[in-house]
């Protein structure tokens, strides 16, 4: 069946925005139907914009740490409205989530009702991968994928310490990505999570791991080489060393250097660009980082913007989560050391306008957005739920598009932030095209999703219609319609048809000997065989679930 969207402004950040008709034919977009093809549905949409489905490339929506955050904080769940009331409400403003870490059902629905159709869990612990996929399978409406967490797995550290050939590490990384059905690789505080297990409380980029004697720089170099060599579309996704520590800009810039000009993605960058100046020894170095991003074509960032209010932080970075334990609100936390592979720390947190550091972090995040020139290399994230729940995206979009609104929040910050920040001098206001680039086109390119993020002939018909409004927060909070694979699934606050889902995976060439080798090592290191954790492709399939490839053996890797 062909659906015709008539007279809306089509924006995809590639072609110039224009008022035109858009046709959805089956699961894809077509520029014009062939003669004789019947139009099954038509929607007249003057004064509306049409964009591709949103893509969140860094949001914690599945796996062990998300679930223990839910477990830890049942008191955060507030169903002020029944589900029926939520479904029926006419307000254009998106209601608060029932919790910063809602259940999967709610997560899927709330993303869809903002116009997002694909989300990626950025920290899949290998031992936990089946769990992460199971949770994401239960998140309705969204296509999902996961980034495999490496760089603190003891086997890799051991191999780097013993100078094994880089090819062996490449083969290992490829095997791990395949076995855990992921589409990218993430490293969190390279070596630092493991160092914490040996009671080391700090590890700078050139500091030595207490057991293996290697440095984070070596790990980053080795992993970034591996990711490039095996052909993953998404570059190494890096959570730098020294998260949240004053002066950590040095480690962040050194991390970029450690990749030796290879492509790199720095995640939740606002937590990693602090100086030591200012009245409290804590200052913004967003300008330095943004300048480096602007000057480095293969480098991208997501911001991890914080918003004020209660949330919960969860991270594989046990070392730094533990360091912040006394800041937890309410005062309780969970720390886990996991399977010789990584760890996790879960801390409830409340960001306040009047707190100096919180205000500074807020302004640094906004600064990064405004200083990075190319919106396809800076992505709109809150590192959900770390900086804020994902439902704050419409608010964040308004902050970027409306200088006066931004300043009205800035004026509420701690006086010392107002005195020292350069934010008032940054007059840039994002255009609609730029917002679309940073939430659709950019993430799709960064992940190698060649048929998403744009409104071109042949692209996937994940399409969102927003009513034009003066206030971008209202506009992006609630689309008029959402199509998934050409089918209308959401209209005017109502969820219509259940839609099928896809898991995004990379299919890589794997050294046939690696399986036997790892099987033996796994038995001695972890006490069980690789078969226990290896996920078969058919486990990801069902009547409503398919698999899509971000990279397939024999194909050319799309590049950012």
């Amino acid at each position, binding site marked *: 069946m062909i659906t015709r969207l008539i007279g809306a402004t089509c924006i995809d950040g590639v072609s110039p925005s224009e008022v035109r008709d858009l046709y959805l034919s089956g699961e894809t977009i077509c520029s014009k139907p062939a003669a004789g093809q019947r139009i099954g549905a038509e929607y007249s949409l003057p004064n509306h914009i049409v964009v591709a489905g949103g893509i969140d490339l860094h949001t914690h929506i*599945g796996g*062990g740490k*998300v*679930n*223990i955050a*839910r*477990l*830890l*904080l*049942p*008191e955060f*769940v507030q*169903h002020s409205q*029944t*589900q*029926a009331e939520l479904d029926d409400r006419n307000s254009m403003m998106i209601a608060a989530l*029932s*919790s910063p*870490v*809602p*259940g*999967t*059902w*709610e997560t899927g629905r709330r993303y869809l009702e903002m116009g997002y159709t694909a989300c990626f869990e950025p920290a899949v612990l290998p*031992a*936990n991968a*089946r*769990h992460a996929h*199971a*949770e994401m399978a*239960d998140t309705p409406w969204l296509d999902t994928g996961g980034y495999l967490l490496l760089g603190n797995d*003891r086997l890799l550290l051991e191999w780097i310490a013993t100078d094994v050939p880089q090819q062996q590490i490449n083969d290992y990384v490829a095997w791990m990505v395949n076995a855990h059905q992921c589409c990218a690789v993430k490293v969190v505080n390279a070596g630092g999570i493991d160092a914490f*297990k*040996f*009671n080391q409380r700090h590890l700078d980029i050139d500091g030595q791991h207490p057991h293996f004697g290697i440095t984070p720089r070596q790990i980053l170099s080795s992993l970034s080489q591996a990711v490039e060599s095996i052909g993953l579309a998404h570059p190494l996704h890096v959570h730098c060393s020294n998260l949240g520590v004053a002066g950590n800009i040095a480690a962040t810039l050194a991390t970029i250097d450690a990749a030796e000009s290879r492509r790199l993605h720095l995640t939740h960058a606002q937590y990693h660009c602090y100086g030591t100046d200012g009245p409290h020894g804590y200052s913004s170095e967003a300008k330095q980082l943004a300048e480096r991003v602007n000057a480095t074509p293969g480098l991208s960032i997501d911001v991890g913007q914080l918003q004020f209010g209660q949330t919960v932080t969860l991270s594989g970075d046990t070392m730094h989560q*533990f360091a912040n334990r006394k800041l*937890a609100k309410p005062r*309780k*936390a*969970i*720390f*886990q*050391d*996991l*399977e*010789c592979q990584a760890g996790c720390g879960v801390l409830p947190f409340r960001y306040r306008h009047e707190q100096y550091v919180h205000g500074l972090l807020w302004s640094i995040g906004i600064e990064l957005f405004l200083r990075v020139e190319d919106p396809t290399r800076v992505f709109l994230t809150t590192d959900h739920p770390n900086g804020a729940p994902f439902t704050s995206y419409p608010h964040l979009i308004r902050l970027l598009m409306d200088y006066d609104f931004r300043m009205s929040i800035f004026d509420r910050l701690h006086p010392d932030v107002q005195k020292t920040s350069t934010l008032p001098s940054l007059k840039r206001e994002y255009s609609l095209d730029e917002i679309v680039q940073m939430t659709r086109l950019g993430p799709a390119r960064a992940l190698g999703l060649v048929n998403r993020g744009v409104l071109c002939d042949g692209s996937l018909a994940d399409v969102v219609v927003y009513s034009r409004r003066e206030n971008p927060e209202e506009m992006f909070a609630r689309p008029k319609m959402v199509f998934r694979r050409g089918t209308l699934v959401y209209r005017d606050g109502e969820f219509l048809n259940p839609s099928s889902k896809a898991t995004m995976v990379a299919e890589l060439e794997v050294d046939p000997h690696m399986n036997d080798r790892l099987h033996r090592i796994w*038995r*001695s*290191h*972890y*006490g*069980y*065989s690789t*078969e*226990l*954790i290896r*996920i*078969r492709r058919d*486990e990801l399939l069902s009547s409503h679930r398919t698999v899509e490839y971000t990279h397939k053996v024999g194909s050319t890797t799309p590049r950012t």
Partner: protein
Amino acid sequence: MICSFCSLLCDADAAHGDRTKVFDCSRRDQSIVRLSAIRENQSAAPSELVERSLCEARAHLKAADRVLITGRIASVATARSAVRLAAQLDATLDCAEEGHVFKNILAIQRSGLNSVSLAEARSMTDLFIVVGDDAMLDACPRMPMALQSDDGQQRMVLLLGSFRDESIQRWRESGFVVWSVECQISEVPKALNRCYEWVTGLRSTAANPGEGSFTLFDSMVRSRYTTVVWSAANLQVQQPDLWVERMLQWIASQNETTRCAAIPWSSLDGTFQQVCTWLTGFPGRIRFQGNVPHYDPGTSSYDHWMAGRGELVMGQDALDKSVVVVIDETATSTPFLPPLGWNAQACRRIELTPESEVFKTAVAGAEVPAEVFRADQTVLARVEPFLAIGTHVRSASYWLEKLAT
């Protein structure tokens, strides 16, 4: 693989290629024997009877004012189906034996947690403190094996509680240097505090009484990574959640200077708790209302229902319209037949159990494939079946989906 009878790793079985063969695991042995006996005595119910019973069950559920969905749920698929059915029926949902898990959960929700997974503990730990009694080993006979690494290094285990010589011997045979101190479990958190303070005090004054206890305690204080293990199901203390909370606080305090973590040992019901948490935001003990889950660890618990309190305290008419859906997809040696309290006698019961006359339910991970969490709640494994299954036996999730339609 993960053992479908105790949720522990039993990789040795898979490695030897014979998954029915028992390797020094009495529990697994008993479960297989019991299951075989059940199946030998069962025949297929006529399909008309099954259809009629399904229709009746659906009618009861539809007409019910109050529904409790409970039992022993061991797999992801069944947990998902149970949550869906509960949401559809606005039912109360709580696993029957979750009481054990909830002792840990309630403490964690108040105090937080420092924990470690099995492989990590095997690799990093130089001292295990195991708190409990023989029942803990009976429930999980392979625990010593699961905690021992094959890296050739001797590790120390301190058994606190009440352990028979045979139990102590099992730890020794697994390669541990064993210290066993018979004590009241309730006193353990306090005693550990005192012991650490005492040794630290002695060391700072350079005094050494030369007693064996000092050697033990000194080793404890020198430990670089201590792991404390308990199984809430086997904690013989009053108010176990408070005991767990005190232990968690002690462990947290240790981490100010060294590394220390817990393994709050779980069992098959941990899988239900995980799935229920990711679907609803809550680990169980929930009541759906208008499709929205409400968490109430007190009145929505299985025990509360079965005692005939709370929601069941109402007129006889209402009791007539109460239905309990009982699910058991395990081969636990005690069959699951909930003891209905005085005020719940009038409840209708729909049974999805291996013994059920109509809805014969397969054992997850033994007769049908299952995704099951390991006892430390870290690894979710897919467990392939290794026992033959009759055509009349279906997975619990199959029956639940049938009841939902």
